[in-house]
């Protein structure tokens, strides 16, 4: 008996060491890989409608965590190109226990106006991403979902954990479920399939060009595509000039800065 116990005690660490982590453990690693204090970068996105016509916009983003525990952020997004929209900017202050504060600056009017905080299902700047998607990618709400490991798969040449995320009762979301593919090396999202409230596939998010961001220790996808399978619309996003945890001037997250940038 002692021999059997000794055998199991000897083999147990090896068994655990080679066992795949649970879905929740992977999601915790994912959240850690995306948890930042601040971020700067340039986003160039192209919306391609199902007719094939496209529109490209470039904006500068500044993000800063305003509550470490709640993982809520201040976001300043300023259009820089093309020139007819340059200067248009939005400032969002996320809150964990109340509605976000949001302001819009329109250079033609030369005033910033407080606007009703965008609904989570509203499309972000006309893209196929919604405000809920943005919020979830900034900080996965682990308490609001049940995660289930579906296996391990290869996505675009990268080994990934395939996980299903189903919202818990009471979670405010526009999706009935999400299927997630998390990169085994960097723990970043490689792909997300979004399902609408009727359980139909709505859209697919895919991330490409995953590279380290300077010497910050963080990795980021430098190219993203979101395809709406129901409407045929596509958004292509290219990121550049990433800077993570390099410090962001907190004065930027003010209405005055918005009007005087």
């Amino acid at each position, binding site marked *: 008996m002692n021999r059997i116990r000794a055998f199991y005690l000897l083999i147990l660490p090896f068994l655990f060491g080679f066992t795949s982590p649970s879905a929740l453990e992977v999601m915790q690693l994912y959240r850690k890989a995306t948890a930042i204090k601040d971020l700067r970068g340039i986003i160039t996105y192209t*919306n391609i*409608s199902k*007719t094939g*016509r*496209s*529109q*490209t916009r470039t904006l500068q983003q500044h993000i800063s965590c305003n509550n470490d525990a709640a993982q809520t952020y201040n976001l300043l997004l300023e259009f*820089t190109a*093309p*020139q*007819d929209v*340059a200067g248009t900017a939005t400032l969002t202050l996320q809150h964990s226990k109340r509605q976000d*504060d949001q302001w819009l600056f329109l250079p*033609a*009017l*030369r*005033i910033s*106006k*407080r*606007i*009703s905080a965008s609904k989570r299902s*509203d*499309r972000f700047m*006309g*893209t*196929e991403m919604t405000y809920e998607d943005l919020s979830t990618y900034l900080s996965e709400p682990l308490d609001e979902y049940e995660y289930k490991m579906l296996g391990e798969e290869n996505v675009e040449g990268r080994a990934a954990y395939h996980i299903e995320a189903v919202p818990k009762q009471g979670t405010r979301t526009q999706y009935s479920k999400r299927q997630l593919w998390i990169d085994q090396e960097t723990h970043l999202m490689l792909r997300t399939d979004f399902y609408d409230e009727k359980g139909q596939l709505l859209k697919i998010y895919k991330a490409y060009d995953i590279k380290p961001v300077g010497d910050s220790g963080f990795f980021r996808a430098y190219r993203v595509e979101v395809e709406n399978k129901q*409407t045929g*619309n596509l*958004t292509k996003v290219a990121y550049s000039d990433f800077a993570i945890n390099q410090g962001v*001037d907190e*004065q*930027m997250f*003010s*209405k*005055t*800065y918005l009007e*005087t940038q």
Partner: protein
Amino acid sequence: MITGKGIATCLLVSCSIVTTWAQEQSTKWQSEFYGEAHALGRYYLSSSEAADYRWQAETRLNLEGEVSYGPRWKGEAAVLGNLNAQHTQRNRLWVNELSAAYHGKGIFLKAGKQSLRWGDLTGFSASDLANRYDYYDVLDTERERLGLWGVETRLYKGSTELRLRAFLPDNRSRIYLEDNRWVALPSLLPNPQISDGMLPAEHRATITEFNDQIPMLGASFSVELGRLQTRLTWQYGNNDLPISEIAPLPSTDLPIGYEVHLRYEPLQVAALNIGTWLGEWNIWSEVAGVFSKRLERQEIVQDNYTFTSLGIDRFWQFENPEQHLRLMMQAIRVWANPDTPYLPTEIDHIFQSSLVLDTQWQMSYRWQCKLRTVAELTAKGYYLEPQVVYQASPKFKMALNASWLGGRNSSFFGHFKQNSRFSLLISRQLP
């Protein structure tokens, strides 16, 4: 004792420090430059007594630059050039903006020549009466905003802000008295020797007079109380639109020569703005006291009135990402002395009891439709401005619009109905 190796090490370290410092400096300096050229053509449907042209054409070059050092310092410049074969007084090249700005902790400071708006409302604000424009055209002023020399300071904490402005006294709007469809100088003057008799007359000179060379001053305090965005503003300076008087010159020769005396009087506006939202609608309002002067029966009299306004606006987006709709509606009511009806040529009183609608529908990435309408209920006038915009490429755009003025002659829109027109604007971003 300093050895050769030591000197070499020192030099290497120094070079390294200098290189690092230079790299840091180069990453802090950023610059952006932008240019736009446009050609504008207008065709008026009727002839005008004020000016005999039906066609109007002009080209403009707009060059803007911005240099920043880190997040705190920024310099801006804008150089504009006009080319107008018809009206040579429009031909000029000028610096419309040249300013430096500093953004510190809770403070913003900007000094120099700056293009700014005095009102803080999504629609028309009483404080916008202080805006300085080039009034070559009275309807299309947004591209004609003039830079002003002065200083703006903002002190803020969160969304609470105190804004102070001080600008030089002689910041005037540009007014065109001759050969302009919006200004009709008299060609006949009353004959003092014969009642109801008129004599031919001719404009000889323009004299500018200031009641007082007062600077343009502004103070504004804004605070957010829950869902209420409130702002108190005060603005004081000379009115950019002068009171004009015709002064015949002593002579017996015909035509009689006369001078136009442009007299600049003080304008003061105190306003309270309140804004909030209901669902997807933004709601905003203004109550303002305006203290100005006007000409009445050849006398300059006080012109004090209350300006009230209520507006809503909303933005819709649709499943098709190419389409969106913006809508803005504003109701304006001016509470003035009912015994002194304003003349249609008093530009500060275009709106008395007005409904304004401004809408923009993007049908696709290429095509947009816009419509601006004004219904002036007191003076019984109206204005319709439909516009179609074609975005041929990201840098090339064309806009065709119609400006339709109508109503009774007692209203601004009815008085100038002969200025209804079509316009075509072609713009190209540079390079």
